[in-house]
């Protein structure tokens, strides 16, 4: 059942120390910056963050890292022109990193949401990222066995929700949101607006409300995505 929260603080309440937090977004597109800011205020520590990147500039995920709340990052591409916060923590040995190929990251999240115990994936075979992993040749092709990534909490940004939690996204800001929403025990979504049930055509719902626990409206601010 979906709760429409009054504030981002209410939306992220209860995140426990040591949680695994899935954070949507690809660069800034779809990044739930306001929810991350609320997590910084909320205070949970010792977090594992699963996200495509490891923070940009000094805001959002980078600010969470700078606040010393993150023990470990699972991502495909930590290194960016403006990832100095992560870079500094990593080089000084204050943060752990697991690098996962981007499509394998998405598929491992999907597997968690879909009840798949593990899957044989052709990506990364013969590369350093497959070292130590079980491999198998199936029908003449080599695969690596990959396991689900399950979150305690997912933080997602969508375009519009209805009151029962159905979501639609906007353009390439959709990216990891729909799979992360399925992969966490508690999914928290910041949206630009909340509509009434029926306002979103049932044919165009991308994330059905069953995957959405909490919704909070955060109007898109000018410059919020810059």
């Amino acid at each position, binding site marked *: 059942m979906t709760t429409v929260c009054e504030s981002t603080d209410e939306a992220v309440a209860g995140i426990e120390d040591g949680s695994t937090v899935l954070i949507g977004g690809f660069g800034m597109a779809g990044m739930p910056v306001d929810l991350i800011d609320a997590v910084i205020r909320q205070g949970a520590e010792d977090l594992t963050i699963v996200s495509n990147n490891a923070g940009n500039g000094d805001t959002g995920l980078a600010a969470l890292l700078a606040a010393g709340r993150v023990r470990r990052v699972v991502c495909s591409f930590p290194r960016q022109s403006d990832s100095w916060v992560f870079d500094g923590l990593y080089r000084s040995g204050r943060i752990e990193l697991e690098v996962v190929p981007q499509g394998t990251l998405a598929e491992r999240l999907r597997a968690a949401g879909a009840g798949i115990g593990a899957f044989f994936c052709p990506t990364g075979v013969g590369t350093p990222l497959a070292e130590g992993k079980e491999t198998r040749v199936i029908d003449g092709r080599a695969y690596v066995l990959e396991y689900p990534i399950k979150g305690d909490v997912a933080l997602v940004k969508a375009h519009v929700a209805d009151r029962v939690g159905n979501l639609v996204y906007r353009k390439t800001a959709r990216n990891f949101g729909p799979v992360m929403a*399925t992969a966490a025990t508690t999914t928290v979504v910041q949206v630009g607006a909340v509509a009434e049930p029926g306002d979103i055509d*049932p*044919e165009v719902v991308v994330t059905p*409300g069953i995957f959405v626990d909490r919704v909070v409206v955060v109007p898109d601010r000018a410059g919020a995505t810059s």
Partner: protein
Amino acid sequence: MTAPIREHTGRGPLGKDEIAARIARDIPAGSYVNLGIGQPTLVADHLGPGAGVVLHTENGMLGMGPAATGDEIDPDLTNAGKVPVTELPGAAYFHHADSFAMMRGGHLDVCVLGAFQVSAHGDLANWHTGAPDAIPAVGGAMDLAIGAKQVFVMMTLFAKDGTAKLVRECTYPLTGLRCVSRLYTDLAVFELGAEGAVVVETFGISYDELAARLDVPLRAA
């Protein structure tokens, strides 16, 4: 969740509709629920709009409404039993892989199924009688059995020939292992699990009579 046993001996066994109503009472508001083909669909009649329950049909929909009648009938909108149904505001459609990912991933709160046999530790047999000439057909039964957070079974406690359908070990081919959490029958409601069968409530029969008629160790709630 286990309260002291309630013995309703001043009345007869529950009818189908009363079993359905009894199940509906145990489904919390806000639940996402899948009702299996056949008798379990009766449960929907006891989940009014006020129950805040969202129905899932595994052929690709959340927010399923009542059966369609008259002009509402649309061959593109059916439930898993291929019966024309309606959509409620807030519904969503999705494809089969997404629908069963939702189920297998444990996102549904409750699933209500019929059964040929259920074992005291929650094994389910509801897809095949084991008859050698039967054409096997499983549909979504195995997916439903392992998919929901709680699997409720709705059935008569005894077959027409008097054989108990709550058993120590299923003799019919299994649908799922240790998957049924509650069993709702005309004569009693049971909680099932690793510890065996616990009787929660009886109808038209006392706990002692019930225990005498079943070849299954029972405990009173």
